[in-house]
């Protein structure tokens, strides 16, 4: 198929772009940036902000570049004194309905509106300010909405409704009264919100931010009665660097270990270790169900936003969910049992902080009573990658200059399989490597370790694998908006008494998986997601240890402490139950 292209001129330069390309994108490909506050590369244009206006030919109209396709022969002007004037006036109008509170805002220094106000040299309030008084919503504990800072760009709503299919956020009322609010004007925690935080990752201003808990970390570190420990999730290590000027995807595991010790953590653990443990339990669960005719498909449950979504929307799949806890919770419970026992530390004094790419993990920490399986909260506090960057900057540690460090033994060693947990398809790939071993008694051959059939960025990816003559059908979905199709397919087969279309399914709520999580550094695009993903898979490829079941610390853990996978002790500490929940609490 030949791609039809169109030829036009932008600011006097000849361009040729595929038919249907917006003026905004065409300009970008010609190294021209047109300002916009509503159009995000992940989203469809809505023409909400009015900043991307351009001129075409001699027309006096100023169409919006985001929503206007380049046509053959167009003479486009993106920047001239008049356009700059109009853009400045539009910005002034937006600012006149926006609080003048940059210094105390969660987006100070990373706000797109603040940046543009700076670039356009706005030095005074030209239009009297009116900010509608609206109470903030911090009901979820994961994300905080300050409705007064909303510029009605609609990004969060498009993300929440179309991309994530959650429908927690919407616009209410109309015209000048338009406001973004949780569905039907209730608190976010009472709505179908699953705390994925994609709204916060896409908001151009400080209207939606993660619940910043860095102060609580300092308080714990300063308390002499607390023995503070920390764990780092897989996806954090390939994204944190963006906050310190590293190229996206740079694996900074060892620098992060060093930084954690400098911050004052007494023990530094790695969530990759417990990802390996999750795989042992989950693969055992899969093999048990697969070989004894148990409930299939088995569906992964390490993503708390997905768990919440399933309990609210697809609760008929409760029996299909893996009962294995997520790596965050597994590490937490082991820190307060196994580690405490072996190190002779009173578990009551251990304060476990987790660093996650995710806002929903803050919610997972207290999701059910089973999150206190150690007798204490398994994880005391969860912060996101963005908060960790802030914490390191506050600490005065010159991050880029730090020498490499090591994690603590017994909860720190990991395999490549644990590392790739942070990307879509990674959990499935890690689980299959171990399931193959459990079924056949031997490892996948060197070139088959990379299960390429399930890698990639398509929203749903299915594959059929041959395990010594037995077919195993698997599927991977990421971005909650892709889940319904998959669930309906399974439900249909079940209703018709047909065999399940898949035996094993992995779902991650965020596009790209955890590397694209709602708590990761800002400005995410598919290109950035691909680089972070590459960081994880390259890391896996370079490791000698590629299988969770070959992690020596995991083997030791079972011998010394847990007993058998799916055994009594494992069951009590490492497994959970699920229950249907109402999507709306009122």
């Amino acid at each position, binding site marked *: 198929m030949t791609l039809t292209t169109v030829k036009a001129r932008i600011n006097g330069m000849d361009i040729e772009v595929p038919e249907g390309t917006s003026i905004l994108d065409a300009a970008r490909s010609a190294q021209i940036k047109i300002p916009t506050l509503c159009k995000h590369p992940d989203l469809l244009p809505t023409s909400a902000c009015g900043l991307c206006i351009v001129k075409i030919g001699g027309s006096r109209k100023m169409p919006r570049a985001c929503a206007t396709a380049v046509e053959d022969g167009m003479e486009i002007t993106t920047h001239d004194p008049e356009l700059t004037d109009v853009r400045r006036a539009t910005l002034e109008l937006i600012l006149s309905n926006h609080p003048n509170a940059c210094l105390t805002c969660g987006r100070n220094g990373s706000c797109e509106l603040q940046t543009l106000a700076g670039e356009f040299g706005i030095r005074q309030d030209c239009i009297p300010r009116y900010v509608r008084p609206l109470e903030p919503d911090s009901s979820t504990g994961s994300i905080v909405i300050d409705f007064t800072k909303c510029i009605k760009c609609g990004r969060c709503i498009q993300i929440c409704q179309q991309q994530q299919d959650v*429908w927690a956020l919407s616009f*209410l009322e*109309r015209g000048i009264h338009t406001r973004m609010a949780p*569905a039907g004007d209730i608190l976010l925690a009472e709505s179908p919100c699953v705390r994925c935080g994609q709204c916060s990752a896409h908001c151009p201003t400080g209207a939606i931010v993660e619940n910043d808990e860095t102060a609580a970390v300092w308080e714990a570190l300063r308390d002499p009665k607390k023995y503070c420990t920390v764990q780092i999730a897989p996806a954090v290590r390939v994204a944190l660097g963006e906050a310190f000027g590293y190229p996206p995807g740079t694996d900074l595991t060892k620098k992060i270990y060093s930084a954690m010790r400098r911050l004052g953590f007494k023990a530094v653990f790695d969530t990759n270790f417990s990802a390996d443990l999750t795989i042992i339990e989950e693969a055992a669960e899969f093999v048990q169900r697969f070989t004894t005719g148990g409930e299939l498909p088995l569906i992964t449950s390490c993503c708390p936003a997905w768990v919440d979504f399933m309990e609210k929307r697809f609760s008929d799949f409760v029996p299909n969910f893996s009962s294995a806890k997520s790596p965050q919770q597994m590490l937490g419970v082991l820190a307060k049992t196994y580690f405490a026992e072996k190190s002779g530390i009173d578990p009551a004094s251990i304060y476990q902080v987790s660093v996650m790419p995710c806002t929903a993990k803050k919610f997972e920490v207290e999701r059910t009573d089973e999150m206190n399986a150690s007798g204490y909260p398994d994880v005391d506090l969860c912060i996101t990658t963005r908060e960790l960057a802030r914490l390191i900057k506050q600490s005065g540690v010159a991050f880029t200059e730090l020498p490499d460090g090591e994690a603590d033994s017994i909860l720190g060693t990991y395999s490549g399989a644990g590392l790739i947990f942070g990307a879509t398809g990674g959990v499935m790939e890690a689980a299959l490597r171990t399931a193959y071993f459990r079924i056949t008694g031997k490892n996948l051959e060197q070139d088959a370790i990379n299960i390429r059939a399930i890698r990639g960025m398509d929203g749903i990816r299915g594959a059929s694998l041959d395990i010594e003559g037995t077919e195993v059908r698997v599927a991977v979905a990421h971005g909650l908006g892709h889940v319904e199709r998959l669930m309906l397919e399974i439900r249909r087969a079940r209703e018709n008494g047909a065999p399940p279309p898949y035996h094993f399914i992995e779902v991650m709520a965020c596009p790209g998986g955890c590397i694209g999580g709602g708590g990761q550094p800002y400005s995410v695009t598919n290109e950035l997601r691909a680089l972070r993903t590459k960081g994880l898979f390259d890391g896996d490829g370079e490791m000698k240890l590629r299988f969770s079941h070959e992690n020596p610390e995991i083997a030791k853990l079972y011998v010394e402490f847990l007993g058998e996978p799916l055994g009594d002790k494992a069951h009590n500490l490492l497994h959970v139950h699920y229950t249907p929940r109402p999507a709306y609490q009122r």
Partner: protein
Amino acid sequence: MNTAVLPPVSELEPEVLQQIDDCVERWSDQEGNLIMILHEIQNHHGYVPRESSLLLAEKTGVPLARIYEVLTFYHYFRLVAQGKHHITVCNGTACYLKGSARLLGELESRLGIKEGETTEDRLFHLETVRCIGCCGMSPALVVDETTVGKVATTEVAGIIEKIRIQEDTHE
């Protein structure tokens, strides 16, 4: 925004359930059915109770967020039950010049609500209109179906009290 409390779900439920079932059945295969169903619900109850919207979301698969987008976009739809007695202040030019703003202020302070709101006991609903065509009687009020003309601010308390006494004797 009105603060009136919704009737308890248990009181509404069988009736609401039946009505939503009927509506969804009747409009199920027609495009744009959401607005038609919402109209029917409002015609029935005088407003669109939250319970109805929740049930409607469940029956039609339309997310509650979308239903509320529609409900709050159109001024026609009401989300709370209106008061039993309507007091309408005419704000047309003649009434305005004759001091309708003072009448409205007096009503607002005596009832403890703003224009467009309903009292917590749901006895009174207060609103304004541009002109009721009774300029000769300005400033005018419409109390339920009756137009009251040349109203002095000092008469407002009596108008409210009269309705309160009526209601008390009915009980």
